[in-house]
Every structure is written in C-alpha cells, then in structure tokens.
C-alpha cells in the first residue's frame, strides 16, 4: 500500500469540454501513513493511442501542494486548466487522440502514487479558421510537391535498378545458352526478363502522369481554399487542353479522409492506413475531347460537417486529400492528389 492514495474528480460528470472552457475539478488525497510530499502535481496533456507509436503534447502542469501529511488526513485540492484550441478528442480505427489529467505525489523513499483520468475535448463555438494549433505545422508540410518529386525520382531510380541489370542478365544468359548449347540457361534469361519487367512497371508508374500529359497537355489542378472548417466547401478547378484528340472515360475527384500511423522502429517500422471517408465527384462523363479544346471543370468539394480535423504528430496523422483522376481510354491515366487541411 502506498503512503497516500490519489483520486481525480472532474466537476462535470460527462467530462465533455469545449475549446476555450475551463476543466475544473479537485484532487482527493487520502493519507495512509506519515509522509512528506515534495510535490503534489497535476498535469494536462494529449496523447495518441492505437496502432501507431505514441505521440503526446499540449503539456501544462500545476503544483498543488508541498509539505507534510498525517495518517488519516483527507485533503481536497482544487485545480483548473484551460482547454486549448486542439487537437480535439478523436477515436478512429488506427488513431485515437485523447486528453488526460495525470496526478502524482513525489514521496521521498517511497512508491510515488499516481492516477490518470481522461476528458473529452469538443469543438467550441469560438473556433475560427486558422485557430487550429496544428494548422501552421500542417500547412508548412510541402507534402504534395515533395511527394510527387520524390515519387518520380524514386520510381525512376528503382525502375532503372531492376530494368538495367535484368536486361543485361537476360541477354548474357541467352547468348551463353546459345553459344554453350545449355538450354537450362534460358531459365536464367527468363528470370532476367521478369526482373526487367518489374523495372518497366515501376518506371511506368513513376512516369504515368508525364505520359498522360503528352496527350492531355499540362493539367492544372487548383483547390481554393485548401484550409477549410468542417462543413465548408472548397472549389476544385481542373483545366487541360489536349494536344491531340483524346477519348476520356471520365474525370473524377475523390475526397478522401484517412488515418496514417507508423508503428515500431528500425526493421519493425511499418505504416498503417485506414480510409474513413471516400466520396467521389464526377466532373466529366465519358467523352471525346478534340485537340486544342479547353476542358475547364469546377466542382465544390464539401467537407462533411462532422469531419474530424486534420492532425499531425510524429508517426500519427489524420489527412484529407482530393485526388483528381483523368481516365484516358487506351492510355495511361492522370492522377494527382491535393492536400486539404480540415480545421475543426
């Protein structure tokens, strides 16, 4: 048994608080034995839990007491914390974000008693666009541009890595097979071809948009605004003018919300994604577009009113994106993703 027991009691039994409100309550201490307390501390913070490595933040703390306690004594220490502008409580599949109050008493030469309780943070009426504490961090991620450039470079590098040795190996084995009269060496040549094929597929995916734009001309995709509150709309504009006549199977935009978390470290590090919202808009049905014809399409993408806000912490992200897909008949398709920051 510890020298004292702690219990956090929140004034609001449902523990639901809105941004900007005060979390109030008291910390009950029941003293079991004579002891000195070097610090009775209560802290407030958020923490992720679920499939990803834990992340935390928003730490604030208060020292409620230091001094002597006598056995049989029962004390009550009130506390209050302001509910920050976020992140809001979120319970998803791989990602959960919860707010906690954690109390601990520093008792020298004895087990330090501690206790933890959650509280729930909801969107407040005072929330305005741009108030999100993670907004700047989310906005400062040049994710799209970086991902597309890196994707192209990596795809080409990996493609070349498989393609070149695969081709060389295949040719060498074929020549050896013929010159040495060893038909079994053709198996090696076949393996080389498989290797080369993998390279071709990788290079194709890396160059897909470049190839698609040879037919469509430069495709411009803009999303305004790219920071919206839940329930607001964002205008997506897609423009292209084909260099030659193009048969299109369709032009679609998909609003997607997903949790992306990373678990483990080193070789055990793995990424897990869970799509929780997937909504498709059709901008153009199947149609033949003449060379030089301007294709200008606008659509209002509506972020649901109850959409969870974007969230970014180490190894834990909740992201919203709009993917534009131009499906070209008998030709590589064009695909492009634009990030949207959803504020509460």
């Amino acid at each position, binding site marked *: 048994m510890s020298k004292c027991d702690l219990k956090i009691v929140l004034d609001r039994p449902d523990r639901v608080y809105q941004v900007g409100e005060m979390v109030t309550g008291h910390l009950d201490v029941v003293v079991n034995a004579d002891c000195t307390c070097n610090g009775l501390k209560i802290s407030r913070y958020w923490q992720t839990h679920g499939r990803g490595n834990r992340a935390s933040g928003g730490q604030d703390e208060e020292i409620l007491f230091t001094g002597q306690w006598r056995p049989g004594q029962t004390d009550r220490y009130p506390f209050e914390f302001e509910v920050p502008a976020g992140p809001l409580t979120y319970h998803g599949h791989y990602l959960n974000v919860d707010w906690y109050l954690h109390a601990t008493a520093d008792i020298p030469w004895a087990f330090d008693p501690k206790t933890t309780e959650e509280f729930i943070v909801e969107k407040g009426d005072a929330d305005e666009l741009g108030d999100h504490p993670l907004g700047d961090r989310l906005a400062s991620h040049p994710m799209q541009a970086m991902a597309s450039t890196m994707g192209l470079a990596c795809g080409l590098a990996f493609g070349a890595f498989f393609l070149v040795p695969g081709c060389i190996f295949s040719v060498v084995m074929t020549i050896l097979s013929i010159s040495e009269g060893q038909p079994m060496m053709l198996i090696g040549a076949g393996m080389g071809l498989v290797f080369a094929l993998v390279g071709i597929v990788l290079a194709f995916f890396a160059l897909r948009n470049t190839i698609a734009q040879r037919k469509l001309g430069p495709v411009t995709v803009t999303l305004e605004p790219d920071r919206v509150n839940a329930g607001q709309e964002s205008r997506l504009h897609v423009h292209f003018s084909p260099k030659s006549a193009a048969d299109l199977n369709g032009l679609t935009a998909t609003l997607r919300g997903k949790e992306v978390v990373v678990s483990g470290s080193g070789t055990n590090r793995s990424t897990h994604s869970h799509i929780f919202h997937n909504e*498709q808009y059709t901008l153009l049905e199947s149609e033949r577009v003449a060379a030089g014809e301007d294709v200008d399409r606008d659509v209002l993408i509506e972020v649901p009113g109850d959409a969870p806000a974007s969230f970014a912490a180490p190894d834990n992200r909740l992201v919203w994106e709009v993917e534009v897909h131009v499906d070209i008949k008998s030709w590589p398709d064009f695909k492009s993703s634009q990030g949207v920051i959803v504020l509460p």
Partner: protein
Amino acid sequence: MSVPPPSPADGRHRRLPFAHLNLRRNPFGELPLEDWPALTVLDVDRLLATLRSPPRCVQLLGDKGRGKTTHLLLLRARLAPEAPYVHFPEDAPAPPVPEGEPILFLDETQRLSRRQRARLFAETLRRGAALAIGTHEDHRAELTRAGLPVESHHVGDCSPGRLEAIIASRIEAARRGPGELPRVGEAAVARLVDRFGDDVRGATFHLYEVFQTLTEIGDVEV
C-alpha cells in the same frame, strides 16, 4: 462508395475510449518502450544470474517479432533500470555506445560491423562488465574468440500458456475500473497459436483488429 466518418454526432467521440469494454484503450495497440517490462510474462531469473556475475554476455537470439527487445527491457528493468539501452537502427548511423558503464543493453547488434562488435566484446571483458544483446544473428563464435563468456537464449517460445498470459496481462494493463473484462479463452488462444505459430506480434496485431470490433464484454472470438 462513401464511408461515413466517425463523428461527434454519433456520440463516438463523446464517450471515453473503450469504456464499453471497461478498458482505457485497445490493449493490443502500440505501447511505449517503458511499458513493456511491466507487461511481460517471462522467466528471466537464470539470465539475471548470469548478468550478475560479470564479465559475461547474455545473447538473446531470435527472429523479428519474437520478443528480443521485450526480454532486454525486462532484464534492464529488473537489474539496472538506469543502465543504457541502445537500439541500432537499420536506416540510420549507429548511435554511440556509452563507455565506462558496468552493464549495457544493446539491441539489434547484428547491424554493427564485425570490427565494432569485436571491439565492444573485448572492452566488456577488459572492464569486467556485463552485456545483454538482442540479435538476429548468432554471435557466439565472435564472443568466444573475444574470450567473453556467453549464455545464449533462443527467444521465440510461444506455448499456448505463455500467449494466454501475455494476452491477459495486456488486457489487464488497459483496465479502466473494477469489474469484468473481455476474455480470450483457451480455445481462442489455441486458434491464435495454430494461425500465428511463435509470431506473438502477429497474434497481437490480429487481436487489435478484433478488439476494435467488440461491442460488449464477453468471450472474444478470434
């Protein structure tokens, strides 16, 4: 296809997480390293005795996901909680190994070069220190050459009894309050062993998904 997002409107975010299961979180989610030792169900007394009589090395050998890190952290928690624990990452430069420590806990030592390991083993012997290492590769020959006595322990036992104990300890650690908790019974554990063999991590990942779908406390089907 449109999948409705979890929303405040459906009350999901207004409830405390996993309160319907008398839990604080999914018991099979990712845990911080410091929580691991408290949740292990291993008997490491023999290995502790070895480390208590330096100069010696305890080698924990096993494949990915079998529990090498868990063993190392448990040994550290029982023997020297303040001793350095160093994990050598795959895709980053090796962090420096602290010098002058009476005991070291080193994870993924197969990622060090032979020369680095030889120096480490020789230094451990010279200073009369103890060393606990987790590795995918057997370093016994190198340790013997360095003259450092070694006890090698193959990690990977996943008997139904041990897996049942691991599962029970993780559920208990996520307990919210007094009362019943979801139960993963013997038959369910046997099915997990059939399906995942000694891959404890695979079994716990599967249980994570199962616990996401539970709506009430009771016997858990896997």
